[in-house]
C-alpha cells in the first residue's frame, strides 16, 4: 500500500510540469542592440499580469568583486530581499539615490554581507560612495514573468498564464521597447527585438 502511494506521488510529481506546460505558455526570443556587439543585461518583462505573487523564499545576491557589482543588472519580484556582499579587500559602500528605494547600507569591509528588501516596483540604481565608477541596477517588477538576456541576447519567460500582455524591455542606455504578445497554453511564442 505504502509502496503504491509512493509511486503515485512520484508519478504526480513527474506529471506536474507537463500539466503546467499544457496550461501555460512560453515567450522565447532574441534581443539585438543596434551597433552593439554585446546584447546582455536587457530585462524583458510582462505588464499587467493579474494576481498576487509571493517573493522568492531565498534571498538573491549582488557581490562586489574587483570593484565591480556582480551582476550588473538584477531583475527581482517586488518584496525580494537582496544581499550585498563585499568580496574585495577594500571597503565598499552600497547606496541608492533612486525613488523606488532610497537607502544607504554604509561602508563595510571584506566578507561582510548586508541586505535590503525591495518593496516597490521601479528601477533602483546602485552606487558605491567609495568608488564612483561602480554601478549596478535592480529592476523591481510586479510579477515573476521576466527574464534577462545573456551576451547572445537570448531570453526565455516560462509558465505564463494564457492571455494578451505587453512585453516591455529595460536597458541601461537604450530606449524602452514595447510589444503586444499573445500567450497560448502549451505554445511558445517567438519574439525578435532590436533596441536602438
Amino acid at each position, binding site marked *: 500500500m505504502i509502496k503504491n502511494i509512493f509511486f503515485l506521488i512520484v508519478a504526480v510529481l513527474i506529471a506536474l510540469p507537463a500539466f503546467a506546460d499544457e496550461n501555460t505558455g512560453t515567450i522565447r526570443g532574441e534581443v539585438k542592440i543596434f*551597433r*552593439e556587439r554585446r546584447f546582455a543585461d536587457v530585462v524583458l518583462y510582462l505588464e499587467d499580469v493579474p494576481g498576487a505573487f509571493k517573493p522568492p523564499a531565498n534571498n538573491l545576491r549582488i557581490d562586489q568583486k574587483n570593484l565591480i557589482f556582480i551582476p550588473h543588472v538584477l531583475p527581482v519580484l517586488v518584496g525580494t530581499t537582496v544581499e550585498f556582499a563585499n568580496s574585495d579587500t577594500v571597503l565598499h559602500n552600497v547606496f541608492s*539615490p533612486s525613488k523606488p528605494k532610497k537607502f544607504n547600507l554604509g561602508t563595510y569591509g571584506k566578507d561582510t554581507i548586508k541586505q535590503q528588501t525591495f518593496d516597490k516596483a521601479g528601477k533602483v*540604481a546602485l552606487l558605491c560612495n567609495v568608488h*564612483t565608477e561602480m554601478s549596478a541596477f535592480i529592476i523591481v517588477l510586479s510579477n515573476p514573468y521576466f527574464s534577462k538576456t545573456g551576451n547572445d541576447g537570448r531570453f526565455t519567460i516560462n509558465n505564463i498564464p494564457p492571455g494578451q500582455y505587453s512585453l516591455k524591455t529595460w536597458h541601461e542606455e537604450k530606449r524602452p521597447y514595447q510589444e503586444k504578445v499573445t500567450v497560448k497554453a502549451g505554445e511558445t511564442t517567438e519574439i525578435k527585438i532590436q533596441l536602438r
Partner: protein
Amino acid sequence: MKLIRTKKKKGIISDKEESQMKKVMLCVFLLIISLVFVGFFSGNAEAIPTFARKYKTSCSTCHTAIPQRNAFGDAFRRLGFRMPGGDKAFVKEEPVALGAEAWKEVWPEAIWPGLLPATVPISFYGHQRVVWKEDASSSEGATYFDAPHELEMLFGGNWGERISFFAEWILYEKSFANDKDKLGAMYIQFNDLLGSTPGMLNFKIGRFETGAARGLKDDNRLTPSHAMSFDYTVAGGGADKSLRTKQSGVEFNGILGSRFEYAFGAVNGGGDNTDSNDAKDLFYRVGFKLGGMGLDGSGGIPKGELVQKDNWRDDSITLGTFGYFGYPSANNATTEENYTRFGADLRLSYSRLAIEGAVVFGNDEVAAGKDIKSTAFNVDLQYLFFPWLIANVRYEQKSFDDNTSNKDVEAVVANLTVLQRANIRWNLEYYTYLEDKDGNDTAKLNIMFAF
C-alpha cells in the same frame, strides 16, 4: 617648362638660366617620383592620430586626403567630434569613467559624471617643404629647403557626450618671426544645449576659426597656399582682417533638420594681436545642403563597421552666406577702422569632381571719412583620379577701389596631391600670378604627415 619657355620668349631669362631652372625642376620631379615609388613599396605607416586611434579606423573614414574632410568627417566635426547616430558603439578605446552614469540621480549632491579619453588625445602634424621661388628683380629663381616648415601638436576629443575640446599648438613654423611657437586654436564646445537632438545647438568658447569662414574650410584645404578670398587683408590700420584668422570669443552653432547649418558669435577681433576694447567683432553664417549626406551625417550612417571605400563621394550642393563686422580700434581712437565682410560660399560635388568657391565683399574704414571697398573671389576645381591621387586648379583674385596701398591681384594655383599612406600626403603646388608685377611665382613640394 612651358612657363620657362614663355619667360625665355619674353627675354626674362637667358639660355644658361633656362638650363638651370630646367635642372631644378627635373630634380624636384625625380625626387617626387623616386620618393613616392620608394614609399609605395616600403613598409607600412603605422602611425595614426587621435581620432583614428580612438575609433581604430583609418584617416580616410573622415578625410578625402588629410586634412580635407569628407562629408562624414564634416558631420563628425559639427557634432562635436562624435560619430553620427551615436558615438559610443564606435569607440574602441573605452574611456575612463569619472563616475557612473547613475550619479546623475545624485546631482546636485554629487558631481555630474563625465569621461576621460582612454589615452592622452595628442596628435602631431608636420610639413616638410622644398620651395622654388621666382625672383623677379634679378630674373633668377631660388630653390631652398623649407624643412621643417611646420610642426604642430593637436589635441581633440570629448569629455562625455556633451563636451568636446580641440587645441592646436604650433610648435614650430618657419614663417613666424624668430620661428616662435604659437597657439593656433583652443576651444571647448558644449554640445546639444537643446536636449537630445545631436548638434542642434552648441556653444563654443576659446580661440577658433570663426563660423563665418567655415564654408570654405581653409583649415582643411589640400593646397599649401590659402584661398585668397579668406586670406586677404586690407592695408591701413593694424588689425589682421583676414577671415581665416583664429579669434578669441564665443560662438553658437548647430544644424537644423539635417540640411541647414548656422553659426554666429562674437570675438575680440584683431587675431593674435587681441584688441581689448569693449566692442566685439560679430560674425554669422547660414548654410544649406541639397543632396548627399545630411550635415549631421544622416543618410550616411554606417551600419556596423566604419568603411573607407568611396566615402569621398557626396553628390551634393552646399550654399552658404556669411558676414563679419570688425570693430578693431581702441575706445578712444579718432579713426574707428571698422570693417565689414559679406560673402557667399559654394561647394558642388558630383562623383569625382568638386567645385568650391567663395566671393567676399569688403568695406574698410582706413582713415577718418575714407573707406576702401574690396572684392575677393576664388574658385577651385578638384578632381579625384584615385583615392590617393587628387588634382586641384584654383583661380583667385582680389581687387580694390583704391590702389594706393592695395593692389589688385589675379593668380592661378595648380596642385597635385598624392596620398602615400592615409597619414602621409605629398603635394606639388605651382602658384603663378597672372601679371608678373603682382608677385613671384612659387613652386612647393610639400610632405605632410600626421601621427
